[in-house]
């Protein structure tokens, strides 16, 4: 007789396993798992993440929050398109999926480091160009500052899923009959 989950932790684990099993095998969202659909979702996510800074800076909090929300929705769609492979722990993945996920995090780190490093370098160059007596007065609003922070938070959130979606070809249709 199958032992039913007893403790809250066991029930949560069983619930998580059911959800993971569903997302790894379902075919409801296969339309988002083709190569063109994945590339479109990557482009959408990139536009929204980059757009967070001008949305907060020019449009204020309302526009900023709206674009941030859309960026999170694009992340959710991206995750569905790759069956959340980028976010699952080892015990739910097979050896190829683990290799894909690990490689994606390495590439995502390199991309993030390049973007942040590039922005910092451009900032330093701008500082040198405009500084007088080694001083610069920078005026910013809360919205502008939050926009930069949200960009820095959301970019590493989306990048691993973006990399997996880019590296993986469109899914092969499930072969039911031999």
């Amino acid at each position, binding site marked *: 007789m199958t032992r039913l989950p007893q403790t809250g932790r066991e029930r949560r684990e069983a619930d998580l396993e059911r959800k993971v099993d569903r997302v*790894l095998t379902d075919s409801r969202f296969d339309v988002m798992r083709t190569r063109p659909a994945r590339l479109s979702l990557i482009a959408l996510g990139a536009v929204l993440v980059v757009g967070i800074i001008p949305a907060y800076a020019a449009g204020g909090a309302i526009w900023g929050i709206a674009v941030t929300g859309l960026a999170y929705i694009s992340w959710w769609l991206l995750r569905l398109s790759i069956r959340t492979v980028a976010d699952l722990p080892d015990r739910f*993945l097979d050896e*190829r*999926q683990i290799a894909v996920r690990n490689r994606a995090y390495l590439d995502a780190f390199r991309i993030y480091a390049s973007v942040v490093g590039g922005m910092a370098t451009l900032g330093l160059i701008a500082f040198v160009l405009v500084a007088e007596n080694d001083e610069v007065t920078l005026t910013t609003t809360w919205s502008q500052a939050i926009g930069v922070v949200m960009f820095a938070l959301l970019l590493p959130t989306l990048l691993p899923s973006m990399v997996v979606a880019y590296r993986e070809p469109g899914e*092969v249709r499930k*072969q039911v009959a*031999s």
Partner: protein
Amino acid sequence: MHSRLEQFRLTRGMTRQELADAVGVHYQTIGYLERDEYSPSLALALGIAAVLDVAVEDIFSLHPFTETKGPRS
């Protein structure tokens, strides 16, 4: 890595899903193996060979298979 996995699987009348369930991987991984887009670990290769009841070198090879000579050509 080259494989004749699809050939052996079809001979046994198995679907990708059935083979995947038997060796504990996602069915997509079977597709990657059949298209020579992923090289399996030794454990997975041996597991697949055991399920299909053939020698592992009959399924996987470092060299392309030929129709007449097989994997050890």
